[in-house]
């Protein structure tokens, strides 16, 4: 099978483009200048948003850098907890799928907003799990919420592909 024939297969083309975008974007955010200028401030922003949401819920939360703490519990928001990874995977899925640019834009904006809201719910729930069910914190953090976030990303992608990625953008 020639490279041309592989490229002509829509499944192979999607996977090649998806993995290329994914690899490049994760390489870019791994660079120190990008990490310092974008990833760290963004993670601190997620921490501030989580602190504000906790205060709305009546928890006297304070935020220092990427640490959200209250007299009852504290969490540090790391790079893996800021939903950047899920967002980039979702973004790669949207960009690699054949669709019109307007549809891709709707997918990117809508999907990223939903993923951020879900991540905020995740952080809040983990904070309260840490307070009330500390023995289950690691399980909830590692495999329950991480699986939920990935599944939610895939579900969003399926909904977008069906509703917005219309036939016009499909390869002929």
């Amino acid at each position, binding site marked *: 099978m020639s490279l041309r024939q592989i490229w002509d297969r*829509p499944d192979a083309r999607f996977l090649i483009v998806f993995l290329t975008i994914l690899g490049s974007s994760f390489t870019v955010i791994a660079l120190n200048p990008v990490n310092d200028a974008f990833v760290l401030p963004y993670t601190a922003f997620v921490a501030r948003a989580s602190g504000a949401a906790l205060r709305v819920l009546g928890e006297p939360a304070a935020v220092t850098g990427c640490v959200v703490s209250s007299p009852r519990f504290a969490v540090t928001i790391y790079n893996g907890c800021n939903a950047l990874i899920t967002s980039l995977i979702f973004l790669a899925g949207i960009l690699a799928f054949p669709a019109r640019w307007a549809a891709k834009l709707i997918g990117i904006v809508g999907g990223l907003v939903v993923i951020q809201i879900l991540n905020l719910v995740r952080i809040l729930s983990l904070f309260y799990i840490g307070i009330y069910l500390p023995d289950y914190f690691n399980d909830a953090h590692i495999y329950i919420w991480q699986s939920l976030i990935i599944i939610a990303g895939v579900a969003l992608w399926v909904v977008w592909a069906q509703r917005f990625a219309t036939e016009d953008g499909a390869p002929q």
Partner: protein
Amino acid sequence: MKTPAIGTPGVFLRRLPVALMAGVMLWLLLRPAVDIAVAGLAQTLIRAFEHPRVTRLVVDDHRIQVHRSDFRSGSGIPTVSLAENNFNLIVLLALCLALPRPFSRRQLERLFMGCCVLYLTQTLNLVFHIKTLYATGLGEWSRQFYSDFARNVFGFGRYLTDLPGRFSFPFVIWLGFNWDLVMEMVRPNVEKKTRTASKAKKTRP
């Protein structure tokens, strides 16, 4: 009233929560075997490039203990979490179980192949973890035996197979093995047209 076809996104999305719960149950059940299988292949791969062969990986309470026969007897034993390494099996199981007819022979074969590919990615991730530990985490010894280039290669391999890989591999594998089903689900008309066109191409003399 129209009943939804079995492969519609609505049915898929409604099945996902149940499939996710089934995935968690199956993973908890299979976890001890997966831990041992991942550790076994990772140890074989690491030892294949070692002279002398000193690394021994021991599974203990869902963590890998990295033993080396050339460690001093009193030195601490580094460990790596296996829950973080192979939890993504839950996601692959859930996505496959939410598709139409998940227990048909064809779907079970695809699931099996998908699990095998995911197993290889999990093993690769563990190998990179341990090689990064050797290259960067053992102080003067690391500086003595690993070059800056090796440190960068292993560190970057670990980074890519860690969060980005662990999160995206189940989706890529699921879509790769089930492209026809997923496309029928999200673009039924386009998929039908494509299939008809490729059939016509094949029958053309």
